[in-house]
């Protein structure tokens, strides 16, 4: 008996599917409001001092939030190697666009305040906008494509060939998902600004957040309608499933059919909680954003992000990356993971470090908490962004 056999292989696969969700939701909940704030920046704040207020609500903490994204990349590499290989090489140019945009973000935060020149500062404001809006859109479009199935094939060497193009990523449904992602993050960013800023900026943020929540409700409902009516086809495994199988994605049979993404809800009605929480969060934010219940609205906004992403996950389970042109090569929870041993070792590492991360992150937020306004910027003129 070796240590890693303490936990069954199929259980570990399940745990890592949940952890994948935790990482993506962690990223969207934390860096999500940074992206929302960055997207709003050029529109919600006009003067330099207003823009500095907006930037400094996230300036000291956004960098830690972005690590959720980097960690998601590393954890997918470790726990779901074929997913890492196929998704990033398949979405090659889209990934480049995301990276190029995200590269602008750290630089923009740091360099903007290094020169007083208005043209310099304005250029970095638009860099921040690009580094926030573009990833928010492309991540949503990517999720849309995953729901539709991605055009890739695997040969028996498990070498992937991709049969799509960059512009092929943009379909009606995937754009809908992209816009839902933008609405959700803009709403989340607005709620953040209501909490951390005041005066005119908070007032404009309330308005922007309300509009974004409204769009979010419409788009989420429309997406659900398209999936449930079979306009967007889902995938279903037709061969026998052995959750303890070795990880080779080619050992199963899969069909595409309308309504397949609804099967899990029929089998386990409790899963309706996921879209339910998503809608509750969106509606709660829409209704309460004009009130003074800032922390409650933030909780609703976080629930919306959680619910929407969880909905994608549970609809597709056990699929994590379906192939539209060779469905049997789709990646599922059961056949696309690392080995039993690696999943166990990584779980130990996560169990040790994730709680530590949460503790010090909470402490840092607590130290830096407080409203940012024009006075605080002028007081800390040298240190503030």
């Amino acid at each position, binding site marked *: 008996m070796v240590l890693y056999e303490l936990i069954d292989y199929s259980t570990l696969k399940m745990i890592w599917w949940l952890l994948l969700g935790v990482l993506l939701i962690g990223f969207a909940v934390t860096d999500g409001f940074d992206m929302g704030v960055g997207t709003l920046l050029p529109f919600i704040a006009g003067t330099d001092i207003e823009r500095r207020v907006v930037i400094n609500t996230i*300036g000291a903490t956004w*960098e830690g939030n972005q690590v959720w994204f980097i960690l998601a*990349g590393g*954890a997918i590499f470790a726990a779901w190697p074929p997913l890492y290989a196929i998704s990033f*090489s398949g979405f090659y140019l889209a990934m480049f666009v995301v990276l190029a945009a995200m*590269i602008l973000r*750290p630089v923009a935060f740091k360099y903007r305040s290094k020169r007083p020149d208005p043209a310099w500062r304005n250029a970095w404001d638009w860099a921040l906008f690009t580094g926030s809006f573009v990833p928010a859109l492309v991540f949503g479009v990517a999720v849309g494509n995953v729901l539709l199935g991605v055009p890739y094939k695997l040969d028996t060497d498990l*070498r992937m060939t991709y049969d799509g193009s960059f512009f092929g990523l943009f379909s009606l449904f995937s754009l809908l998902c992209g816009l839902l992602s933008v609405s959700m993050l803009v709403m989340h960013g607005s709620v953040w600004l209501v909490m951390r800023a005041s005066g005119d900026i908070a007032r404009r943020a309330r308005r922007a957040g309300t509009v974004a929540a409204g769009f979010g409700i419409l788009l989420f409902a429309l997406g659900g309608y398209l999936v449930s009516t079979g306009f967007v086809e889902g995938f279903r495994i037709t061969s026998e499933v052995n959750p303890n199988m070795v990880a080779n994605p080619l050992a199963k049979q899969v069909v595409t059919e309308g309504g397949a993404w609804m099967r899990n809800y029929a089998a386990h009605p409790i899963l309706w909680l996921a879209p339910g929480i998503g809608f509750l969060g969106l509606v709660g934010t829409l209704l309460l954003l004009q009130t003074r219940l800032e922390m409650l609205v933030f909780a609703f906004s976080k629930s919306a992000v959680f619910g929407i992403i969880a909905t994608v996950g549970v609809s597709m389970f056990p699929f994590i990356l379906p192939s539209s042109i060779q469905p049997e090569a789709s990646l599922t929870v059961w056949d696309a993971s690392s080995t039993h041993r*690696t999943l166990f070792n990584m779980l130990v590492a996560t169990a040790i470090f*994730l709680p530590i991360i949460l503790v010090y992150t909470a402490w840092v937020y607590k130290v830096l908490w407080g409203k940012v306004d024009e006075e605080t910027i002028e007081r800390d003129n040298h240190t503030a962004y």
Partner: protein
Amino acid sequence: MHRTQVDYDLKRGKMMEFDVVDLSRLQFAMTALYHFLFVPLTIGLSILLAIMETVYVMTGREIWKRMVKFWGTLFGINFVLGVATGLTMEFQFGMNWAYFSQYVGDVFGAPLAIEGLMAFFMEATFVGLFFFGWDKLSRRQHLAVTWAVAIATNFSALWILIANGWMQHPVGSIFNPDTMRMEVSSFYDVLFNPVAQAKFVHTVSAGYITAAMFMLGISAWYMLQGRHLRIAKRSMAIASAFGFASALSVVVLGDESGYEANLNQQMKLATIEAMWETEPAPAAFNVVAWPDMEGRDNLFAIEVPYVMGLIATRSLDTVIPGIKDLVERSKDRIRQGAIAWDALQTIRNDPQGVGEDVRATFARNSDSLGYGYLLLPYTDNPMEATAEQIDAAAWSTVPNVLPMFYAFRIMVACGFFFILITAVFFYYSSSGQLDKLREKRRWLLHIAVWSIPLPWIACEMGWFVAEYGRQPWIIESMLPTAVGVSSLSVTEVLLTLAGFVALYSVLLVIEITLMIKYIGIGPDEDETADDARETSARPLAGPAPVPAE
């Protein structure tokens, strides 16, 4: 068996065109070398900041706080580009090296993920508090934050070098024909890989020197200008002591890397030395040579007898194999690899029905599977390879000798120069004679200023020797680089390569401009009582007229 993309790409590679493999390698080299412009300074300067702030908290003297803030500003300008370019590094294994990622993710992914969990989160979360927390934390709390940033930064070097060390020396893993990938057999062996440990200490020491030379050079410039003398002298004292210790360790630990290379990557060592023939032990060290790849010999060489054998084997009688002997040895492994490759085709075409004898044949030869792949550019069926094809594949295991030879020598020369210059400055600062430098030894200060780029050159050369020297392997002896590539089109990779070059160039220009601007502005000079006392006690420390350069 149907033709795979890789056969096609490898065939085209033979015709000396730029293909997807070359372009992907170029892009990886470009983005990694660029990332590595910022990382060593971050690694070293974070520690120096923590040391200076420790002095501040222990002595309570404000000048040390101003030093931390000043060097911290430069640290910040550098740090963000390390973060920005690090994003690319985390994802481009999957983007450009998809088959590699699928092939080794079970082993290679874990250290990357742990790097995120253990290092990146800590570094990125506390770095914000380092800059914004001065008024919100007690002195001790802020000091703890600074140390957290420094430790986390060094941890990230540890984990990425565990990953890289495994590519150089793939221990603790085995190829599984049912999943078509390498899988972990001992996580412990991967973590405590001797190559990774040697690389880690060598690389962080290089980072420490980079930061020390940076601080030394800028401080020397202030001294030449007669500005910020009190901060410059203190910075110089810290930088020269820290730099001297690091320069000694980088050379000693680099030697450890060379020793490990002799055990595990003999071809790398032979090309570094341009040693074509096996010599009787102990082998001579080529100081200067002109290696000729075509003629497979050196056109000329100046040798120092015995030195090479002593460094690489630490003995008088162990023979170091030359390039030609290593090529001969690889022929046996290529033949074995062809057998493994052939057995693997049979297994993967019918994983359930295949006989135990085929699996046994594969298991016996699977260590050499990577060598079997080396035949794919020359033949569709490695089992039928001719003697000429095997010869060509064997010679493809030799990286180009000339750049290896000189890149290594430039790096080593820089290393010895760092020992010398930090020793000189350490002598002047520890004997309290830094003012004498300003009066009588200004040329020494000039040398320190002009030496600022040298650690970057040494670091990039070190990366080149380690990574180019591993070619043609992406995983040493296990997977050729050309097999690891993604199935992309030339146009796609050209587009992203051009995009990265353009974006990175613009950012680098902006970074250097800002760096120069903030070095020009210099630290805050705050004439508190503490400062004034010292200024009057030491006349030379006052604002002196700027001498004509």
